[in-house]
């Protein structure tokens, strides 16, 4: 990054100006009183703020403060970790485009940018572009939007500090089943990520691709509770420093998510529990196997308040020495559009050294109300 603050400032101005212009335009367009005559019935009235001709523009800001002797998450005591600009719109009746541009101390990056064919013949869906890989459930979540100030140790060890992304194509479909459960299968094929940002994969030629598959099953246990189970597998060319024999790196992941929320009091109480395990192994017979796992629970005990805890354990690719960690959080959401979180983390690094840190994470969102992921 040549001049992070200048670029951030320009970006913020560039991003907020169109957003403001769009909001103003929206207000102007809806300001007149309701028509005296009811409008003629039309097919599909575009009555959402995100469906005007211009893309919906929103910005998520992420400010974070750190205290303690653990500088693995960030270098400075106060950092503006990221401004994530989202540009989203329908391209035509068949496709939509989503772009997420992240600007932070390390520069400007298209974190995701893809076009989705919403309904292919046969009930499929296709995505082309750069996107976060469907490996595990946590990896799909953008860093500012996770409950944590950091990322779980296992995901950092096996997927990199920003998670695993790929540029290519993804195909998914819902699997019909007698119980009418949501069961999806996804296959990704794309270029491996930059080796600077990931600890496993490196392409030495264009033929070196990252192949990934995932299937997940959603089981509604009752009206207030459900379970989501997922299994993922990825195979790609290994970093030369990791696999000198030229074999491929392989990742397997399993995830389990439990949610509880009383539908009659949905804005006041909820529970989220997620467990995820990642295993890595080279493709040659006899290759070593290395693993990591994490689990967390977040309990909403009042309309604006949540507490949570996370446990981590992980080895690293090619290194059996393990690290463990625990993180606790107390989060306040003054509104749907901002989150303030106090967090404390203790990590026992390989070799037995302890690191401790306290974080204050503040994220906020400006722009149209987006769809909330589940």
């Amino acid at each position, binding site marked *: 990054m040549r001049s992070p603050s200048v670029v951030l400032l320009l970006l913020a101005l560039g991003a907020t100006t169109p957003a403001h212009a769009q909001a103003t335009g929206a207000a102007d367009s809806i300001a007149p009183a309701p028509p005296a005559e009811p409008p003629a019935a039309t097919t599909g*009235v575009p009555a959402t703020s*995100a469906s005007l001709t211009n893309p919906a523009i929103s910005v998520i800001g992420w400010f974070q403060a750190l205290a303690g002797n653990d500088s693995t998450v960030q270098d400075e005591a106060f950092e503006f970790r990221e401004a994530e600009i989202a540009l989203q719109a329908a391209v035509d009746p068949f496709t939509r485009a989503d772009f997420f541009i992240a600007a932070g101390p390390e520069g400007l990056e298209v974190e995701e940018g893809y076009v989705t064919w919403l309904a292919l013949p046969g009930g499929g869906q296709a995505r082309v572009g750069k996107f976060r890989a469907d490996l595990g459930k946590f990896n799909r979540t953008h860093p500012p939007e996770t409950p944590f100030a950091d990322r779980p140790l296992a995901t950092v060890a096996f997927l990199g500090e920003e998670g695993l992304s790929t540029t290519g194509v993804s195909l998914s479909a819902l699997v019909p089943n007698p119980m009418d459960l949501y069961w999806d*299968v996804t296959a990704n094929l794309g270029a491996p990520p930059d080796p600077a940002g990931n600890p496993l994969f490196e392409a030495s030629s264009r033929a070196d691709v990252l192949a990934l598959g995932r299937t997940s099953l959603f089981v509604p246990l009752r009206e207030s509770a459900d379970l989501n189970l997922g299994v993922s597998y990825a195979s790609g060319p290994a970093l030369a420093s990791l696999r000198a024999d030229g074999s491929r790196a392989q990742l397997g992941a399993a995830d389990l998510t439990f*949610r509880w929320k009383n539908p009659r009091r949905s804005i006041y109480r909820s529970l989220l529990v997620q467990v995820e395990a990642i295993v890595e192994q080279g493709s040659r017979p006899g290759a070593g196997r290395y693993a990591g796992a994490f689990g967390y629970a977040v309990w909403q005990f009042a309309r604006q308040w949540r507490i949570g805890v996370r446990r981590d354990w992980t080895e690293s690719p090619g290194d059996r020495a393990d690290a463990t960690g625990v993180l606790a959080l107390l989060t306040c959401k003054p509104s749907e559009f901002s989150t303030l979180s106090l967090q404390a983390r203790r990590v026992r690094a390989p070799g037995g050294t302890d690191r401790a840190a306290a974080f204050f994470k503040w994220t906020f969102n400006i722009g149209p109300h987006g769809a909330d992921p589940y």
Partner: protein
Amino acid sequence: MNRTVKATPAPLVRFGRAAALGLGVALGATLAAGTHPGLLRPACAEERPLLVVTTTEDLAAIAREVGGERVTVAALCRGYQDPHYLDARPSYMVQLKKADLFVQVGRDLEVGWAPGLLNGARNPRILLGAPGFVDASSQVQVLEIPASVSRAQGDVHPFGNPHYWLDPANGVPIARAIRDGLARVDGANAALYARRCADFEQRLAAATARWRQQARSLDLAGMKVVTYHRSWSYFAHAFGLQVVDVVEPKPGIPPSPNHVQRLVAGMKQGGVRLLLMEPWFDGRLAAKISRDTGVPLAIAPASVGAEPAIHTIFDLFDRQLALIGQALGETRP
């Protein structure tokens, strides 16, 4: 790198091959099954009833009135849930994937969950702009359209107040929007839908006259009321109530103690006769305000399905007026 290598066969290799094969087969079989000509045929050409999926139970109740035996109707949000904050459970996508018609309240009420469900449902028949997409607000006279929109006002609805089904007169434009949607996807039965819609309108007009009479007997015209959220504007408009304040002035943000203090003081002096609240809010604050001011609290259903006995729009207004009458009756000398 100094490391210990476990000398085992590579189970992840076997797992990977099996997983890749399994995923490939599943994906291929799913897509192949989905491209079967019979499955691509519009549902209206078949004998089975149309599947109508609505976002709320109010729309579902009206869709049943218009569609009759020709439709099977499912609602995503239950009547006792806050429709602003429904979780977009993936199982809803399974329902939407099979839907012939999708009906939403619109005006950004479902903006936090419906777009994601539609995008994930892989059903081109009900996407925005397709014949199977119905925005029920398309013919409604919408109230409280803000002149300017800012999140400083809370989670405001930029396209106006979306709780329009709480005016019985709006049952007519809702029913007509659904009638038109059904006619688009099932033109062969358009006349049937038109007849049923006209019949519903007649019955609704008769019931509305009865409800207005009931409202007059309760002296609702001009009565000052406070509501918890701005859900009751259309109900107030229909029956002449005067909403003088709200407990939650910034939508989506709990009221501050200062606001509650000012509200209580105002209610004591301002001749407020009733505090109206939706059932999904925590009743403790409203009950305290009611105790402090002596103003009766009516926790009234805001949707069909909020209580087991409320199956139709007619049940809904009957129950709302009965509960209001009950609350007002308790304070009368």
